[in-house]
């Protein structure tokens, strides 16, 4: 039976920009269970990365957690301030894989040394023991001839291999939580699938919890157990992957799904969401998505909707779920998503939703 490993409540994050304040995260709560894969999906600027940075204390210097708590093993991570306090969390308990493997690695140091330094520091092993362990991890993530390539430099590796190394580094000390911040966005499509599979396999083997940040619904469909949709600094809907894909409730989730280019019909215009995300400098009244929502209610502009329960695992923050609201159908494009997706994959597409 899985239990809650980390619990964030009412997190609020503000940034000071040119003498103004930008509220990047507006009261977000999230519970994560051991061994699951949770995907956070949303547009650029929705706050996905910022939110996970609070777990490792990696906010920029002009950012601050102004409200809320993150409970992890009985400790409130928002209260940690010094390097020393974070030293036992970062890399050891919670590890991060960033988007661009080229810039994540120091170009003038060997790959091997960048793995062993983590091992030596956290596990207090000797140089040769650390090297042996590093080589074995390199092999685990699929680097051929790991022992010979130990002393190579990052520029001698291809993009996909570099990302494997980054993953190897992140997992070298067996963390409990792995945060993957758009790990495949900078890679070729063919490599993407390999990396995703790699992370999945490693997760099965090592049993860590994965947080996937992505804007690619295809990846979400492939890996996630549960999904959270972020918009305007808030999670506006969350549930199991099946519930989100086949029974979305929030108009933004509808819009996201409708915008899948694979759903386009030949000869017709592709669907797109008009407008741009709201500026988070100003206080937002009501539903943040309302100005871009053709089906918005008057109350969407006045009061912020609470979370409405759809099922034990599925919640959505929209007034449409209020009993007084008029009944609104999902857009036609995403009805019968099941069949449409089946049709796509039968034609040989890479899109695949796990149905377990």
């Amino acid at each position, binding site marked *: 039976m899985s239990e809650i490993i980390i619990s964030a409540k009412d997190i609020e994050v503000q940034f000071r920009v040119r003498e103004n304040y930008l509220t990047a995260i507006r009261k977000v709560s999230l519970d994560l269970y051991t061994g699951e894969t949770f995907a956070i999906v949303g547009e650029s600027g929705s706050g996905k990365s910022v939110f996970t940075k609070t777990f490792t204390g990696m906010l920029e210097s002009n950012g601050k957690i102004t409200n809320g708590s993150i409970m992890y093993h009985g400790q409130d991570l928002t209260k940690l301030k010094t390097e020393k306090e974070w030293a036992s969390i970062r*890399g050891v308990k919670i590890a991060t894989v960033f988007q661009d493997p080229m810039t994540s690695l120091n170009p003038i140091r060997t790959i091997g040394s960048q793995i062993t330094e983590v091992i030596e520091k956290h596990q207090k092993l000797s140089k040769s023991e650390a090297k042996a362990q590093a080589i074995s991890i390199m092999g685990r993530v699929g680097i051929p001839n790991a022992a010979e390539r130990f002393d190579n430099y990052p520029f001698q590796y291809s993009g996909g291999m570099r990302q494997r190394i980054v993953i190897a580094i992140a997992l070298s000390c067996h963390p409990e939580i792995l945060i993957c911040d758009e790990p495949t966005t900078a890679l070729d499509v063919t490599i993407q699938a390999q990396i995703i599979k790699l992370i999945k396999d490693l997760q099965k083997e090592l049993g860590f919890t994965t947080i996937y940040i992505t804007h690619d619904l295809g990846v979400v469909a492939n890996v996630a157990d549960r999904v959270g949709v972020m918009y305007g600094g808030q999670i506006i809907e969350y549930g199991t992957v099946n519930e989100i894909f086949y029974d979305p409730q929030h108009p933004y989730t509808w819009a996201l799904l409708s915008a899948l280019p694979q759903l386009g019909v030949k000869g017709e215009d592709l669907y797109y969401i008009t407008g741009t995300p709201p500026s988070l400098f100003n206080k937002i009244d009501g539903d943040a998505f309302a100005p871009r929502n053709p089906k918005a209610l008057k109350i969407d502009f006045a009061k912020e909707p609470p979370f409405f329960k759809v099922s034990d695992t599925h919640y959505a923050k929209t007034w449409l779920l209020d009993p007084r609201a008029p009944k609104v159908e999902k857009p036609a494009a995403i009805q019968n998503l099941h069949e449409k997706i089946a049709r796509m994959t039968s034609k040989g597409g890479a899109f695949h939703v796990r149905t377990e």
Partner: protein
Amino acid sequence: MKKGYILKRLLRSVISIIIIMLVVFTLVFALVPRDNIFFEDATYRKLGGKPDEKIDYVYNTWQKLGYLDYVKINDYCLELYEAGSDEIKNALNPDSKETADFVALYESKGYTIGYYTVSKRAYAYKDVPLLQRLWKWFSNLVRVDTIYSVQDPNNPDLERKVYFGRTPTGGLALIGSGTYHKYLLYTDSHFPFIHQNFITLNMGESYPTYQGLEALSVMFSSQGTEVKRDVTYETGETGSSAIDFGSLTYKENLDRMDKKKFTDHYANYTTFKDQSSMVGTSFTMGIFALLLAYGIGLPVGVAMARNKDGVIDKLGMLYIIFITSVPSLAYIYIFRYLGTTLFGLPSVFTTFGPSDIRSWILPIISLALPSISSLMLWIRRYVVDQMNSDYVKFAKAKGLSRKEIFRSHIFKNASIPIAHGIPSSLAGCITGAIITEAIYSVGGMGKMLPNAINQYNNTMIIALTFLFSTISVLSVLLGDIILTKVDPRISLTDKAGRS
């Protein structure tokens, strides 16, 4: 492939040096009035009342310095008649047939004819073209000593041989007769203990100052007072002298003193003096200043970056601002004032001389002041740039502490451009520091170029330019090579290394 690139770079460096020399030759010989070189010449001044001798001296000097080719009616006539004969006396007259022939001959060769003021005798001169002059300089640059090097018309039976023997001080030697240097290979008690004279560099004779000395000698020989000791010459004569036997070269006209000391014509020599050469002094000062600069500048610059916008950073910036904006003349004087009043250190180098360490302290620190400032500024910038890079963020996420990130990542990356600049800094040590050496009256390289320019000493100007530009060009090449060793991303053949 790598060797090929280095060769190409060397070739381009050599071409650059040649072009630089051409430019300097043009500046010096074409643009500076050639009369000016006599300003500092005492001999010239003494000839004031003898116009003919003056003209002769002037043209001889110009010829010696390579400006022109100079022929007198006397030389022409000596080929035809006996010296001192009546025919010659007639021939030398300006209206003689020989003079007319002389004039016709040389005018047809493109020479200009002149007549002495008093005797009215004829002479001819022709400018040496610039490129030819440049070529001659370079072909004389490397002097290979052979047994046929000396061509003395007064000594046609000079033996030409090479044989083993000993120097008067007891060192083993390979001795030559007919060679420019007497001892082609010899040992003695001075560093580097084995010396060779087979191949030497010749950059011409210095004129008007340091007359008779070779340009390289001026720069590289010891200075100060002579260090005399008891010596026994080959003739058996003893005496107290500072002679450096290894430096003996052929002298055409021996005087009485020479004949007492030497059995042969090798009677020109340099002496040992107690102070190091100009190059040596500047280099010593420069090296220590450099060590000081790196030793202080780098750590402080790194501390400033880590403490960005804090107290250390602000203080460091104040220092940098002061040194950058205030002319070095001013702040060196200020510093010297503080040093002399607060610590009683001597205000000039010559007070206690080079053997006393107190003479060195103030000049070395003064030399280091601007380097410290620039090193601080640059490494601070590099470190700050590294601090903002993605791999540092990843290292932080990996759980490394700030100290560890600094030590094993940031500092390594930031040192690369610093290492690149080390050869140039070393080169600067040799070229000397003009202002510092002037203020502290240090006998170094710094004052050489301004003095040479002010004294119209063309030979020295050219020799110094050659030395400085060669060192500069080579240090850039060396710096690039160091860069490839230190930064694994850069290979010499791949131009798209960084940025």
